[in-house]
């Protein structure tokens, strides 16, 4: 088990900067998840830690030791790939034990470890099979077993579940949580699935274009996003945004689309330019309701356990409302109001950073207890 520290790590492929000066500390035993949009450099960052690609600049530390120039094979890590990357010509048992063959372990010790790992992952009955005779979920278990058996300092996962169907993904997610609880080894996990990020992580790193947008515990990122990018990235459907009407706003009074009106006591001197409200913080009310944001009802998606309504606020702006219970009976084109509470309102400044305001601060500090 070991901590992982990145100091000013950058990576460029030719003239193209993929990772830009990243500083990050991952604690011993922590479950860290990297999320971000496709192409933001998650896999590259993981491969830099593994030593599969050399850093262009900066230093990597594992367990406090500088490993920047240590080859991948000497870093004592384990990598689980999205494609599983099992050895196709070896059976499951040999796939798991292969790396131990040169690790100066006795035959009995190898067999003991393989048996233990196989039992832990419930693949004991598959040990004689070839990878092509396994289902996707079974292959992924073998890949995890192969990682486990070497008793690595750190586990690295690159989207290990994205080739599985939804049910299996949920099951494996649960198993990985359990695994982490059992072995308590540091795990770094790349995904683009925010459900995985929220449910697995001790802490989440949100990456965007090779930079860290925010690092924090899942709840913290959800309640107190540092900026508009993080606010929009976590949550499904994503947060609703709308620009403020600068001309109509004045000190302490904010006005915007759909008759939005809020008298805000702002913490800083900065002026907000945009508001954000999560779909689950909105309630459909009648158009005449006082304080509601006005729009026209567009359509509804009823998923049974919840429903999502689309409400048009202006020509270019459609907001979503998510709620459970009995779906309301609005018809297309009907004027409708969106009720909201001041404590669930997010304000963003010119540069996209979130601006604290009185009611919001209260919610966040209350929620993070």
């Amino acid at each position, binding site marked *: 088990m070991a901590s992982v520290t990145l100091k000013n790590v950058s990576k460029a492929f030719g003239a193209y900067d993929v990772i830009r000066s990243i500083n990050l500390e991952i604690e011993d035993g922590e479950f860290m998840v990297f999320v971000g949009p496709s192409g933001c450099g998650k896999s590259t960052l993981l491969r830099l830690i593994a030593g599969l690609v050399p850093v262009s600049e900066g230093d990597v530390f594992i367990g406090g030791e500088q490993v920047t120039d240590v080859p991948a094979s000497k870093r004592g890590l384990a*990598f689980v790939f999205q494609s599983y990357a099992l050895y196709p010509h070896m059976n499951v048992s040999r796939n798991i034990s*292969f*790396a131990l063959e040169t690790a100066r372990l006795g035959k009995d010790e190898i067999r003991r470890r393989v048996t233990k790992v196989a039992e832990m992952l419930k693949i004991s009955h598959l040990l004689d099979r070839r990878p092509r005779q396994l289902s996707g979920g079974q292959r992924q278990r073998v890949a995890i077993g192969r990682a486990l058996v070497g008793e690595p300092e750190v586990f690295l996962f690159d989207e290990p579940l994205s080739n599985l169907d939804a049910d299996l993904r949920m099951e494996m997610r649960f198993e990985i949580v359990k695994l982490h609880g059992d072995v308590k080894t540091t795990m770094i996990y790349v995904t683009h699935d925010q459900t995985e990020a929220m449910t697995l992580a001790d802490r989440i790193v949100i990456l965007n274009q090779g930079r860290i947008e925010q690092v924090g515990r899942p709840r913290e990122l959800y309640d107190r996003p540092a900026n508009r990018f993080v606010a929009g990235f976590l949550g499904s459907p994503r947060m609703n945004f709308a620009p403020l009407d600068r001309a109509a706003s004045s000190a302490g009074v904010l006005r915007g689309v759909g008759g939005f009106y809020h008298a805000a006591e702002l913490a800083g001197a900065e002026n907000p330019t945009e508001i954000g409200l999560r779909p689950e913080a909105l309630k459909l009310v009648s158009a005449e309701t006082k304080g509601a944001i006005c729009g026209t009802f567009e359509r509804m998606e009823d998923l049974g356990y919840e429903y999502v309504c689309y409400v048009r606020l202006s020509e270019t702006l459609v907001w979503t409302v998510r709620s459970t219970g009995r779906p309301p009976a609005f018809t297309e084109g009907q004027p409708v109001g969106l009720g909201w509470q001041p404590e669930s309102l997010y304000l963003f400044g010119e540069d996209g950073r979130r601006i604290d305001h009185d009611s919001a601060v209260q919610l966040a500090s209350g929620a993070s207890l």
Partner: protein
Amino acid sequence: MSAAERMQRQQNRTAWLFLLPLIIALVGVAIWPLTRSIFFSFTDAFLDAPANYGFVGIDNFITVAEDPVFWRAVKNTLFFTVISVGLETLLGLAIALLLHRAFVGRGIVRAAILVPWAMPMVVSTRIWEWMLNDQFGLINKLFVTLGLVEKGIAWTAEPTLILYTVIFIDVWVTTPFMVLLILAGLQLIPEEIYEAAEVSGVPHWKRFWSITLPLATPAIGVAMLFRTLDALRMFDLSYVLAANNENTMTMSIYARDQLISFQDLGLGSAASTWVFMIIGLIAIAIVGVLRLDRATG
């Protein structure tokens, strides 16, 4: 008959229909001449009057089998095949492994390496014959200048050397073919398998031995099969270099001598049939080995 069976039958018929042109061509250029050749090997026909023949049973086969020159040719051919295919495989694998790594100018090297293979064998042989000439040859000149030898070596005339010269030229010409086939096999192995092994601490030699080799074995096997069958019926290289010199005579040259030089259609056909049977047996053996390998690997 169920619908599924009808469909199956229809598909079979279509498949045969598509194969028909190939089958006709095969019968015309392979099966028919082969049958004729086997037929003539039981006769005493001569090339100037092939219509004039009588059956002699297996006399021709016995004559060939009792001819020490034939066995000399068989020995030469087998020796040539084993050594040259062996060398080509080792060299081919080594060069393919080098070319498989990314480096600047790899595309050019890949194209350049094909040049020997693209040249007709007769041309290559003549080039090497001149380069290896004991008086005017470049190679001997180089050796003499470097002080390695006193006077030029007669690579293509010395009876003990000439077969090795044949092997050398063949290796030079056909290694590129091996390289390409093995390289194609190497490129089918996913990169992530190596990365997985690397991260889990498997050393280089072990990655080569336990991952690259087994996964490239089918490609290497097919390449060896092609080359072996090619080498067993080798004719041009030996013939251009030494005509019917007994030291380099191959099975094909022996058969050709009986047929063309001695005009003995019956004996020549029997010799050809022997060659056909020997190559056929070896081919079956190799394919069997490859199949077995695939079942376990």
